């Protein structure tokens, strides 16, 4: 229908009580024209109301419903994905893995020569070359899990600061 077109010509007319009795019921009239030059009051209002066209203001406007559609669907997808992942993390993950929840962190100020952040990359670059494919896949899985664990550690660190100790973002 015309409802969802991307252009409109919107005319705003004052609602007056004319002496001859033909009452103007609506103040805003909308029609769609693809050519902005067609957007004049004469083309929009009914024939019996043409005399008030002096006081009407018509504006040709444009929008993009496709963008809106794409954006809204994207948002729905992202929110759903996040929601599902959250459910997974909250419900299934604790059951599946029995690892300690908070990683023990090295105190970097003391052990300055061992850079824990760089270690996974080093492993990544040295080990897989001389292992068979199964090894490599295993390693990949290991690496992903490692990374996920690291991320989880970071988040739980943040959570501790904010929700438990209230040291930040109050």
């Amino acid at each position, binding site marked *: 229908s015309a409802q969802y*077109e991307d252009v409109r010509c919107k005319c705003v007319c004052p609602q007056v009580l004319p002496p001859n009795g033909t009452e103007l019921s609506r*103040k*805003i009239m909308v029609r769609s024209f693809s050519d902005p030059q067609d957007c004049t009051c004469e083309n929009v209002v009914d024939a019996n109301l043409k005399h008030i066209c002096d006081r009407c203001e018509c504006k040709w406007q444009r929008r993009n419903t496709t*963008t809106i559609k794409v954006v809204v669907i994207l948002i729905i997808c992202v929110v759903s994905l996040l929601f599902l992942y959250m459910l997974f993390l909250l419900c299934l993950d604790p059951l599946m893995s029995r690892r300690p929840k908070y990683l023990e962190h090295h105190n970097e100020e003391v052990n300055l020569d061992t850079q824990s952040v760089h270690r996974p990359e080093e492993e990544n670059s040295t080990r897989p070359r001389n292992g068979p494919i199964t090894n490599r896949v295993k390693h990949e899985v290991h690496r992903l899990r490692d990374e996920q664990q690291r991320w989880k550690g970071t988040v739980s660190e943040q959570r501790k600061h904010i929700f438990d100790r*209230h040291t930040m973002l109050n």
Partner: protein
Amino acid sequence: MTSLPHFNVSFSSSPGSTNLMDTLEDLPPGIGQYDDFHTIDWLRDIARDRTRHRHIQKKRQESCFEKVKSAHDAWSGWVCVLFVGCAAGVCAAIIDIGTTWMSDLKEGICVDAFWLNREQCCWAANDTLLDQLTCSQWHSWPQLFGLPSDSGAGGYIISYLMYVACALACATLAVMLVRVFAPYACGSGIPEIKTILSGFIIRGYLGKWTLIIKSVCMMLAVSAGLSLGKEGPLVHVASCCGNIFSYLFPKYGKNEAKKREILSAASAAGVSVAFGAPIGGVLFSLEEVSYYFPLKTLWRSFFCALAAAFVLRSFNPFGNDHLVMFYIDYHNPWYLIELIPFILLGVLGGIWGAVFIKYNLKWCHYRKSSNLGKYPITEVLIVCLVTGIVAYPNPYTRMNASELIKVLVKQCGPEDDIALCDYQRNLTDVNEAFKSSPLGPGVVAAMWQLALALIFKMVITIFTFGIKVPAGLFIPSMAAGAIAGRMIGVGMEQLAFYHQDHHIFKEMCNEGHTCVTPGLYAMVGAAAALGGVTRMTVSLVVIMFELTGGLQYIVPLMAAVMTAKWVGDAFGREGIYDGHILLNGYPFLDSKEEFTHTTIAADVMRPRRNDPPLCVVTQDTYTVDDIEMVLRDTDHNGFPVVVSHESQYLVGFVLRRDLSIAVGNARKNQDGVVSNSVVYFSNHVPVNTVVGGPEPLKLRRILDMAPITITDQTPMETVVEMFRKLGLRQTLVTHNGRLLGIITKKDVLRHVAQMKNQDPDSILFN
């Protein structure tokens, strides 16, 4: 990573000494990086960047490829801010579209095209009812549940329930997502960004997870109808974009000081897209958040802000060809006499700002220190429930705050049928101009509703700002101010209308428009309230100027904002962001505040009178063993090097990190270095050592020969100025050339707090 953010602003590095810088390449990696919750050393980072730049310039002659690399390096700043601007624009567009759509979900749905919000759903409909802005395509919840009309009691109850239920669902989802994925995404973000830009490291605060979660949860939180806005968090989102894109360009990604140039531009882009005000955004970045290089990044920030605004505009998220919902474009004049109500609005805005800051900080402090802080999710749900239940019956609180502002700042035109425009006009002639008229019953009722809405907004915002969802403060304060402004505006209009023969009002009513413009009062009120809360000045006026799009209203805006700031300052100096910085104890050395006390460096430096002496290293008598003992026994981040323990003449400064790495490396790799080896920081290593004796260890390379020093009599005014302007981390205190002590940024912050009669330990470094 330390497990506790104890905000180590204590000393570590020093302003780039050339000998350290030029040999940086051969040193082990990790130097020049900072730990989480540490302060950066601006001078050293800037010097590192210059060294890098010189290196590229030198290599440029060698080959064509190097030339391209050099050009890429020269352009990367511009390319980066272009990317950041575009990204900020896209994020803002997504958030704007998503928010309007999700907000309307509380009341109904567009059946044929579920992705359209109510306004877009009825955009091209000819049967739009103006009163409620609805049309046949838009189905409210009672209609969806099969009730014939939504005006009856049953319909009302269903609408009410669905409104509250949707709000609760959104709020729950928002707070859960924040908690599970990115706790750093909560709050406004501006205090933290101010702190980060002042040279503090908070790892992960500007990461990709924060970006995603903050964007999503901002939409959810606004849709939940909570009294908060998305304008402040947009600055955080834009800064996240800045941080992420800076990693594409090693020049910025690997240098914390340079990265802050990009972040500075990004925050300008954030405000630019939040208010459609590129110039205002740049000034905001300059006035509020930028710290070390206000002018250098001005032009680039402007470019970034403009790119962001351009991208957002091409999305046209509100379908009005403007970047904000509440853009106004009337051109009615104002008269000098109206400055009185404008200044009154400023006074009210200032008082409201002061009251809000005081009670919000109290509440946040209570949350932090009491059991309330243990139930963040429950708190959000309770606030959301209360908001939903109280807000729904009143149409002015039911609607989105941005929409409310849009309604309030609008001038009543012929097309407006809403209660606020229900004047007793008798338009029998189509050619008659739209003039002031007596109030109709609609306006009288709207005034009461607005008054109730104002009280509600003011109270609930105090409790809302600080809950654990992404929450901005701009829109709620502006809404409160706009309500007050509109009410005063309507009052003024009636006053002028009924006394239009009085010589004061004579001129105001005799032209072809209403006597006064109540919408302008709403705009001025919004500016005043925001000014009272944030204590912004120029940037706020310019943002409002860009919103109103005409120089003619700049004087009223300025009068109101200035009054609001002065009145607010009379009650308490700091704005809401500074208040939250203080509450959280972030190490932020305000560059606008003046330090006016008469203390001198000797009063502040450590060691204090009765402390053990300063831990120093001599230049040519310490053995490797001694050094290792010093490293083991102390936790200072750096050690001054002196000529000898007796004379204490300063030679240089060495970082704990460098020293530790160097000694460790030497022990491992260098033959002959044993516990007994003497460590030489000087050039003159004696050659006549005993043959077979321990090999000396030369560490001159890691010594910073140019530490910044001051004398013990230097007034703290000067010291504070040096810390601010040079971006120091520490300075050494001498007397007649002898080393007496050290002052770190932490000491300065403590001292400033102490001088303000705040307990330096409990408040500043929790």
